[in-house]
């Protein structure tokens, strides 16, 4: 929650790294998903053209999103869907609650929606006395554990089956110590089936909204969005406005890319197109801004709004894999989360663009060709200029620029540095110096290159021979 003190990414990552075996397991698990993505992508000869096409469609959307939104709303209304607009998280939560209140319903079943995580909807509804059950298995697990999801596609990827077994034993009364995923999944299926059959309101996210037809598309593997929506009287679908695409035929491009990029599947099990409510039932769509229109105005960062939330950038990221999703303290973690989060709150999320090696792997796997690592680099410059970096780093950078700009100071600094590292290493090799974290420094040379060159260059030797 926002009131809690944020633990910075580097500190959270350091804690995550204390359990070496578990970090290695986390790293390998996500790399395995990345490899599945590669295998799947390589089976499509047109893969790069497909990415380029998706990127161009999304560029078109961003350049014309005003008109597409107007078109979408008109068509959705024609289809009998009720459309709401929310400027921020607060208004989004209030709208959802008002729909619940209108129908006098106190319970909701929810399928995956990162937007509702972003808006902290569950906490808001809990305060209003409304019970929310997350029905995606991964989200259900983390909800029972009172944790946020650690990954947008694989919410419980940070947990081992032993953890899930314990959680289910406590909450669902499963056999203690039974860690069989089949058994655990079956237990959740039985419990959630009862939930689906008894809830009058179902909330889902939206993967794509089509301007041309006013329909929305929701993708799941489990079928939980459909079980909720088709059994409830009221279906509420929440979407950031950037989910729009122009025409139905463009789904062909995005549905080919989404699951292959996410998990390596050729498509999700269900790609459900909701166009009209069932007779006598309601579909509500809540279109949310919450900072997106601001990001649209930041030329360097607007491309982040092309994201289709596949999670490929997380699976490939060497920092994400070895720090875990929770270290990003944002609903969307990883590289894409790190360029979305500073837009939501610059000072709270100033650490995130630095949680990257800028290796560029994220950019290479992104199905809509977002220049993720370039944007991370650009955010760093914005954050430093606006004074959002830690004082220690600012002082260090200023000192460094003075030293590097003046040859005399540089010379003295080099000499004293070598002296200290050699004779009083404790002065630099200590907990205060981040450079020594998990690093051994090389042996200190007798002289600097400059000193060596003075003695050994052709001119110096010629002088000696004179």
């Amino acid at each position: 929650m926002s009131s809690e003190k944020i633990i910075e990414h580097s500190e959270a990552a350091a804690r995550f790294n204390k359990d070496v075996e578990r970090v290695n397991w986390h790293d390998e698990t996500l790399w395995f998903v990345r490899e599945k993505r590669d295998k799947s992508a390589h089976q499509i000869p047109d893969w790069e053209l497909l990415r380029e096409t998706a990127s161009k469609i999304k560029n078109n959307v961003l350049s014309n999103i005003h008109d597409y939104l107007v078109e979408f709303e008109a068509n959705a209304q024609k289809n009998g869907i009720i459309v709401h607009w929310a400027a921020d998280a607060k208004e989004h939560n209030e709208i959802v609650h008002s729909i619940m209140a209108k129908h006098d319903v106190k319970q909701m079943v929810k399928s995956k929606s990162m937007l509702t995580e972003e808006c902290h909807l569950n906490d808001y509804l809990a305060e209003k006395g409304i019970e929310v059950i997350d029905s995606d298995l991964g989200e259900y697990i983390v909800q029972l554990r009172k944790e946020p999801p650690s990954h947008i596609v694989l919410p419980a990827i940070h947990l081992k089956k032993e953890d899930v077994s314990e959680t289910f034993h406590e909450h669902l009364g499963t056999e203690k110590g039974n860690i069989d995923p089949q058994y655990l999944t079956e237990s959740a299926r039985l419990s959630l089936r009862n939930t689906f059959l008894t809830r009058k309101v179902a909330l889902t996210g939206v993967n794509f909204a089509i301007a041309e037809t006013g329909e929305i598309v929701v993708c799941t593997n489990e079928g939980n969005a459909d079980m909720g929506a088709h059994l409830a009287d009221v279906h509420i679908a929440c979407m950031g406005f950037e989910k729009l695409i122009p025409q139905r035929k463009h789904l062909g491009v995005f549905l080919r890319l989404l699951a292959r990029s996410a998990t390596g599947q050729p498509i999700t099990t269900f790609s459900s197109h909701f166009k009209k409510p069932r007779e006598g039932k309601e579909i509500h769509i809540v279109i949310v801004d919450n900072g997106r229109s601001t990001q649209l105005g930041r030329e360097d960062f607007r491309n982040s709004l092309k994201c289709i939330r596949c999670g490929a950038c997380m699976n490939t990221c060497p920092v994400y894999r070895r720090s875990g999703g929770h270290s990003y303290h944002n609903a969307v973690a990883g590289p894409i989360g790190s360029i979305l989060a500073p837009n939501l709150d610059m000072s709270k999320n100033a650490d995130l663009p630095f949680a990257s090696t800028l290796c560029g792997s994220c950019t290479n796997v992104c199905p809509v060709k977002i220049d993720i690592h370039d944007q991370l680099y650009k955010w760093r410059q914005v954050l430093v200029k606006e004074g959002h970096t830690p004082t220690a780093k600012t002082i260090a950078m200023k000192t460094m620029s003075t030293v590097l700009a003046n040859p005399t100071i540089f010379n003295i600094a080099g000499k004293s540095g070598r002296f200290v590292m050699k004779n009083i290493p404790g002065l630099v090799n200590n907990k205060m110096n981040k450079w020594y974290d998990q690093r051994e420094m090389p042996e200190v040379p007798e002289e600097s290159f400059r000193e060596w060159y003075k003695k050994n260059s052709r001119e110096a030797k010629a002088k000696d021979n004179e």
Partner: protein
Amino acid sequence: MNSKEAILNKIKQNQPAVVTNLPDLNLLSSENPDVLATYKTVLKNIGGDPVEVANYDEIIDYIKTNYNLQKRLITTIPELSEIASLNWTNDDPHSLQDVELNVIKAHFGVAENSALWVTDDLLGQRVSPFIAQYLAIIVHKKDILASMHQAYERIGNQEYGFGTFIAGPSKTADIEQSLVLGAHGARGLIVFLLD
């Protein structure tokens, strides 16, 4: 000013000045010399079972052999009335919770991902392919398309209230990436490929 106007105004102000062109989707290839073979391979890879049949009698025989007819079987296909009930489409959808097997038809299938396109006129009830313990879908072999691009060409401006692509049985890998079939929806999917 209400939120809608405020959001739209800000978007108009902040969106790029020049509208960029939409790309040509025809550049994307849909070539596949053997769509049926691809379809079957992909379906097996994602946990579904392809069964080739010549006619409805073979489908009936298959179901009689492989499913318990004492349990509740439903369908929307009159040819299957001997083994499954047709009289449920106007019931409360919750009453379908005890369905063992649901047999429906698809408009077409897609070879590259084995997905089948169904809309509410084929479903009887929207929840029917999700709530049944097992699902069987019939598709004509001649209706297997190569790619999703062809799929959306075929869908065109088709009118529906609800439509979905179904690819394989419901599944999850949320517990340590171990694949489990039958998350919330069908535990198994048979695709009858009809001559």
